[in-house]
């Protein structure tokens, strides 16, 4: 008989017959803690659940509202500011005025500082990241060869 074949068959049989190992005692409690938390979360009202589990209409409504607010914040704030300035002073017009002022500031900062530097900074970050990966790889390989 071929000794390699003997060994193959021996391990085939013996490895298959290996007894099960005991799972750590902490496993079942860990799993059940997450399961009970999930069960409790599932019973909570939809608006207390993660956004991904909200009903489709609520997610769509929130998305549309977020888009409206963002577009108002960045593009309509200057127009809004003019309108508010001419409107009679009420608590609502004051609130809109503050909103419009913050919007104008954010738009100005974005246009003058963030936008021009954004691509440069992104490029620098990517280059630094690649340099770090290269250095660590080289150090790892050199270290490993020395150990060997």
């Amino acid at each position, binding site marked *: 008989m071929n000794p390699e074949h003997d060994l193959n068959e021996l391990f085939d049989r013996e490895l298959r017959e290996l007894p099960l190992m005991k799972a750590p005692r902490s496993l079942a409690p860990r*799993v059940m803690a997450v399961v009970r938390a999930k069960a409790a979360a599932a019973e909570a009202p939809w608006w207390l659940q993660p956004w991904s589990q909200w009903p489709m209409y609520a997610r769509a409504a929130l998305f549309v509202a977020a888009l409206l607010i963002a577009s108002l914040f960045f593009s309509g704030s200057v127009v809004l500011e003019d309108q508010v300035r001419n409107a009679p002073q009420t608590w609502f017009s004051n609130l809109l005025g503050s909103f419009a002022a913050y919007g104008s500031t954010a738009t100005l900062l974005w246009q003058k500082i963030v936008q021009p530097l954004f691509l440069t900074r992104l490029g620098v970050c990517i280059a630094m990241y690649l340099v770090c990966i290269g250095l660590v790889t080289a150090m790892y390989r050199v270290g490993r060869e020395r150990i060997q």
Partner: protein
Amino acid sequence: MIDPNEFEVFVKNYQDMVFTTAIRLVSNPADAEDISQQVFLKAYDHFDQISMSGSTGGWLKTVTRNLCLNHLSRYRARWRFFSELDSEEHGTEFVDSLPAPDTMDQSLVEADYRELLNRALLKLPTAQRAPLVLFHVDNLAYEEIAAQLGVSLSKVKTDIHRGRAALKKYLTPSLRGDERWEEKHNESRA
């Protein structure tokens, strides 16, 4: 709505099987426990279908194996690198780097040799242990193992061969003279 108490019974029934499947592939108890937890959480999400089907054990084993392979693939480049470094660049075998069975192992001569086999299996490097387990325990073909691990067919065959040789070399000193080992080996030669 799933009854948590019913699910707890399910976890307790299958936890040893899931944990054993995981630890034989990843070898690290902490990683195996994390993977087992993920398996049971997936099982919880599909509990209605699983509890109805008759192949619960098979489903759990497949999910465990896939999660373990995902886990190993994160370190694949590293263990492929080690494997190649050990066997090709330096011309040394892992088996030569295994420590001789220590006094604790020698004291196990009287213990079940399967325990030794189990321990030796967990000591193998991942590059050898994973294909060996997939071949002998999960009964996958060489081609399937190569596809699952993303390595060549010849590498799978070489690693399995080396794994067996390492196990044999590790076990032999501990079990030399142990009649059960001799008997097993003779049985397979007969």
